[in-house]
């Protein structure tokens, strides 16, 4: 009898205590970059549990339907969550201790995304010189200047 009573007490205690312990309280300290904003697209508890569902749904929309809106886009996640080191370069999000990797190491779930997806945001090399060439190019070719064409122009560093 006493054993059953003790068992029931332990069970009740764990049920009661598990209530306030939401997903947000468990897990490692995350390095969150607050410079891009204070709020993720969903609350933290929702994200912890369901981020894969959002990503899986979004990837099919993007892949097959060409829908590239920002919410739930993996690229946007990285744009926000990637941290920079002392030199000002981006650190890959799957590096040890970085945003994605710290939780995934804690939960022992292998990250598959970054086999293919870039782990760092891409900096756009906006150069003052580019603006003039950009205008000239556009006038010449009646085409809208693309973001990455500018990159390649900038990278070529002054060639025409």
């Amino acid at each position, binding site marked *: 009898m006493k054993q059953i009573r003790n068992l029931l007490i332990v069970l009740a205690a764990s049920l009661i205590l598990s209530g306030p312990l939401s997903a947000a309280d468990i897990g490692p300290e995350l390095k969150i970059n607050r410079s891009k904003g204070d709020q993720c697209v969903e609350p933290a508890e929702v994200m912890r549990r369901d981020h894969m569902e959002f990503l899986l749904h979004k990837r099919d929309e993007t892949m*097959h339907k060409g829908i590239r809106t920002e919410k739930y886009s993996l690229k946007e996640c990285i744009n926000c969550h990637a941290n920079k080191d002392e030199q000002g370069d981006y650190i890959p999000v799957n590096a040890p201790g970085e945003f994605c990797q710290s939780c995934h190491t804690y939960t022992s779930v292998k990250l598959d995304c970054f086999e293919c997806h870039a782990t760092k*945001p*891409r900096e756009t090399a*906006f150069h003052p010189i580019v603006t003039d060439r950009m205008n000239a190019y556009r006038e010449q070719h009646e085409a*809208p200047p693309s973001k*990455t064409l500018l990159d*390649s122009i900038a990278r070529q560093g002054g060639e025409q």
Partner: protein
Amino acid sequence: MNKQPKVITGRREFIGKSAAATGGAIAIASGVTLFQVGQASARPADESVSNKVRWGMLVDSNKCADGCNDCVTACETENAWGSGSSDEQQSGASQKAQWIRTVTLKNNLTGSEHQLPMMCQHCEEPPCVDVCPTGASFKRADGIVLVDKHICIGCRYCMMACPYKARSFIHEELTNQNPDVPRGKGTVESCTMCVHKIDRGDGNTACAEACSKAGHNAIIFGDLNDPESNLSKELKQQASTQIRADLNLNTGVRYRGI
């Protein structure tokens, strides 16, 4: 603490942002004119692609300049492969990916030579889509043939089946991908017709842009379903063919001067 770097960044950011704003404003303004030329590129971001549009290209081999590789270089830069990437250092020369290549053709009878760029032909009836076990190789509603690398198992059957040898397999781990162009070890890839640029509304592929920039205009990209597009008008004016036309794949990329 040294405040110097922060100030310079701040200035750059300011100029950058105003350049962006100016550029953006001009782009919007020119977008009004462009609307008539390339209205298909004005698809709202949350709208699904449809088969009202069929993206295609015309490659005029007569205009392709001997020895020119600008289209290849532009593709490499845009999509971060080959010389546009620091990855794939361990792969042998025949293992490195190649999305587009210039092929030099020497006529067996006359000996005369000319060259043309070859990439994924974005067939209407792609053999690569037929053979893919998981459906990772698929044709999007607007005609672009893609590899869904989320479900690609790397069996390489599509590479066997492609009559144009358009596909490449990634033989080692990659770390320097373009965020717009995911690529990874153990999966297959090929020319995406710059789908990320098209979806963004750029209205053109990197190779075609580079060819125009170089002044050759050998590659014209556009909407095959739009009779008013530059591409459609060009195709109407002069004869063009498909490579390996006997296979009847109804390719999206057409050629002149083969």
